[in-house]
């Protein structure tokens, strides 16, 4: 091995810049009470026992009719789980708990104003409210099984009530995160074909009562422009009887729920027994290459999966007080505030407002007051709480037994603060990796059986068999230090069924890349492409590196565009930088840097090129050395100022630059194209003939799905 190769950082180091860490083991007190203590679980969920292993998850639910086929693969990759089975999600989350825990709190809602009382909603009360709202939806709004209903609701108890009411009726709900604008909500209404919008007049955030109803009017208008007419807007009121919005109600369209509900007092609605594969909800994710993707999640498979992962990975027990500090507007909230915890009959805490309002001690006051045993949040929130109140947890008398981190990789230093300060050294941590499309966790550690390792999410969870492939579909072995695209070999019950109304996009985005035979009905031929880069250590633990679209693969080394641009911006003279890939016959892809200098500087071309190259070598490594550094007067930008990387990537690769008429500065493109391509020809870098796949890659650069 040469000295140079020894000094090169591994790809994992390039991407995340942290070392392999030591293991942390759970305390005996945790193991003694844990749900998952039988090592035989791993054998039962091995590939040899696939797909029947997931019966163990499905058996956590109450079924109206048992299934005859565990996994139907006849129309891949549109997998169907538990075919022939029938159930109702609301019954599983509410009704079935009534005999044993009717008076136990199902939800504890903490309003943001500390002067307002916390509300505990028992399973019986939840059952009442869900029935009444289901009756209203059916009787007043006229919704029927299979219809879609859109919610634009913040973190108020009316949100889970509305979700469960839809589930009771077999109606597909689609919650749009409360912070989204009216037009964004309208686009999702139009895509789903909802005729009913459920919203609220206002909610508290950062100490203010936010006027939310105004967005409903914009949403309805946008949906109308896109061909869908909202028939009724059902408006919950944050303070029943008091309208908190300045926006007028529209006669004949907008209705206060609290005024209509008395007509349905004590109404009971028979739950609709749904086929296991019937859609339960849509969860939209944004994409830049087209309209948002409505991820369609099933009833039986999804519910079984979130119940199973909640039991074994969240280690939820019915007598726990479980707090997932997320928003139900995202998949984490659907799976791990509502459906997972309630299906297991535990008490789930919801908090309305900003994490650090009125001060960074707020979460710990809530934990102390409610006796929270299990805490679940994201690394960004952990960093925020650490930054703003590093000593706050010690001031409060709470004791967590289990903590989760979700949403992004967590740096070991932050992990240790979470463990030592928030968890007071006594709680286990499960670091989880998954996505909106997946329904539930894909990578994590089973807390009583597998040690924690800061910075790594862990191995695949029960029944999930991840694999890392390189660009050619070759498996990247564990412990090789090589990164690649993390995929899941097998289907699982929580996987979304399709993109609502866009089945081709579903196949193309998630399965086409590594599919071995489009006609095959063998699930082994259809690995699921998660879209994240990852590296697997020798112990089988995965470290997630980020979206695959953000990297340029140079001779098998995955270089993050952000890291390249950050390194370039350390050069004092540079104001803006953009990294793009150029097809290279030797290395597959090479890096080209485009830089714009700070105003008033005269470019000394050779000097700037040398400085940029040196900065990249210093910050990342020689492998990342750019093939060319182009100094340009300005970058092609959208009207809002975003650099259009696909345009400059097309210039570097001599491909069609596409439509630039919507740019703020379309004139700059021709200037850059002329200058760069002439210089490349002068340097002997003639255009090479690109394959259709390479052309597509260049055209899609910078457009993450």
């Amino acid at each position, binding site marked *: 091995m040469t000295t140079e190769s020894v000094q090169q950082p591994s790809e994992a180091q390039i991407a995340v810049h942290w070392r392999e860490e030591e293991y942390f083991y759970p305390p005996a007190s945790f193991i003694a009470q844990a749900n998952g203590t039988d090592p035989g679980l791993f054998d039962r969920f091995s590939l040899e026992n696939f797909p029947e292993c997931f019966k163990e998850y499905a058996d956590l639910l109450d079924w109206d009719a048992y299934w005859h086929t565990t996994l139907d693969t006849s129309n891949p990759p549109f997998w169907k789980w538990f075919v022939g089975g029938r159930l109702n999600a609301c019954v599983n989350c509410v009704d079935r708990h009534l005999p044993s825990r009717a008076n136990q709190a199902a939800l504890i809602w903490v309003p943001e104003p500390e002067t307002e009382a916390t509300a505990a909603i028992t399973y019986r009360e939840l059952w009442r409210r869900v029935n009444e709202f289901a009756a209203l939806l059916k009787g007043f709004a006229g919704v029927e099984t299979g219809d879609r209903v859109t919610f634009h609701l913040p973190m108020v108890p009316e949100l889970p009530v509305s979700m469960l009411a839809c589930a009771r009726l077999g109606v597909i709900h689609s919650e749009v995160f409360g912070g*989204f604008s009216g037009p964004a909500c309208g686009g999702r209404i139009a895509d789903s074909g909802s005729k009913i919008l459920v919203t609220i007049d206002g909610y508290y955030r*950062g100490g203010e009562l936010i006027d939310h109803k105004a967005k409903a009017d914009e949403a309805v208008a946008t949906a109308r422009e896109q061909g869908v007419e909202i028939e009724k807007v059902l408006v919950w009121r944050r303070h029943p009887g008091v309208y908190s919005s300045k926006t007028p109600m529209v006669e004949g369209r907008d209705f206060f729920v609290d005024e209509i509900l008395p007509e349905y007092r004590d109404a009971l609605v028979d739950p609709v027994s749904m086929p296991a594969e019937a859609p339960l909800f849509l969860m939209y994710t944004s994409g830049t290459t087209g309209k948002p993707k409505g991820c369609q999640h099933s009833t039986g498979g999804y519910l079984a999966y979130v119940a199973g992962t909640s039991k074994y990975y969240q280690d939820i027990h019915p007598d726990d007080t479980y707090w997932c500090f997320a928003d139900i507007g995202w998949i984490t909230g659907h799976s791990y505030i509502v459906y997972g915890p309630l299906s297991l009959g535990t008490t789930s805490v919801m908090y309305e407002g900003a994490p650090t309002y009125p001060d960074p001690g707020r979460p710990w006051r809530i934990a102390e007051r409610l006796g929270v045993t299990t805490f679940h949040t*994201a690394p960004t929130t952990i*960093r925020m709480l650490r930054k703003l109140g590093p000593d706050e947890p010690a001031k409060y008398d709470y004791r967590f037994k289990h903590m989760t981190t979700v949403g992004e990789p967590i*740096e070991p*230093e932050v992990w240790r603060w979470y463990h030592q300060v928030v968890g007071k050294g006594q709680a286990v941590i499960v670091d989880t990796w998954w996505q909106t499309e997946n329904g539930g966790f894909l990578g994590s550690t089973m807390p009583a059986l597998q040690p924690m390792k800061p910075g790594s999410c862990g191995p695949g969870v029960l029944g999930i068999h991840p694999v890392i492939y390189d660009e050619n579909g070759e498996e990247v072995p564990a412990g090789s230090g090589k990164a690649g695209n993390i995929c899941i070999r097998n289907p699982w019950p929580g996987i979304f069924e399709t993109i609502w109304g866009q089945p081709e996009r579903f196949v193309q985005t998630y399965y086409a890349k590594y599919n071995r035979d489009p006609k095959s009905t063998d699930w082994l031929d259809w690995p699921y492409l998660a879209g994240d880069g990852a590296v697997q250590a020798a112990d089988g633990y995965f470290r997630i590196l980020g979206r695959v679209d953000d990297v340029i693969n140079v001779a098998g080394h995955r270089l993050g565009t952000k890291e390249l641009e950050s390194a370039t911006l350390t050069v004092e003279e540079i104001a803006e930088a953009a990294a793009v890939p150029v097809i290279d016959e030797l290395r597959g892809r090479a890096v080209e840097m485009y830089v714009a200098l700070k105003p008033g500087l005269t470019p000394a071309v050779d000097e700037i090129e040398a400085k940029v190259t040196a900065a990249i070598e210093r910050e990342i490594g020689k492998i990342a050395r750019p093939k060319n550094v182009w100094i340009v007067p300005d970058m092609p930008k959208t009207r809002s100022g975003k650099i259009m990387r696909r345009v400059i990537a097309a210039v570097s690769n001599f491909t069609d630059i596409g439509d630039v008429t919507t740019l703020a500065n379309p004139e700059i493109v021709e200037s850059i194209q002329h200058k760069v391509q002439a210089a490349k020809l002068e340097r002997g870098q003639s255009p090479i003939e690109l394959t259709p796949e390479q052309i597509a890659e260049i055209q899609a650069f910078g457009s*993450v799905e």
Partner: protein
Amino acid sequence: MTTEYLRGEVLLLLEWAQRVAPCCRGAENAVTALSREAQSGPVDDLSWVLERAVPIVEAWCWDSLAAGDAAVFRRRCQVAAALYDFGICSNLLARRGAESPGASSTIWRNGAWP
């Protein structure tokens, strides 16, 4: 990764910025454009959104200070600080100036060992 929630937090902060924006169409439009970008672009573009949002709101702070309006100045400073803090804590923004305790995110983004 389930990073969609980052988008949500940025949107809530931009909504807050809207509420303290100067009463001129240009200021509102600037934040509206950023909100639109935050709603529709890839999560990684939130860095770009925050890089622009922070100086916009900071400029409003100076405007209110110049106008002698202490109450508005305070509110705008709260928003600017919240945007910056969130950007740092989410690793979407690089930290300014000298390192301080808990500055691992900057070191991390700059590529050195923590």
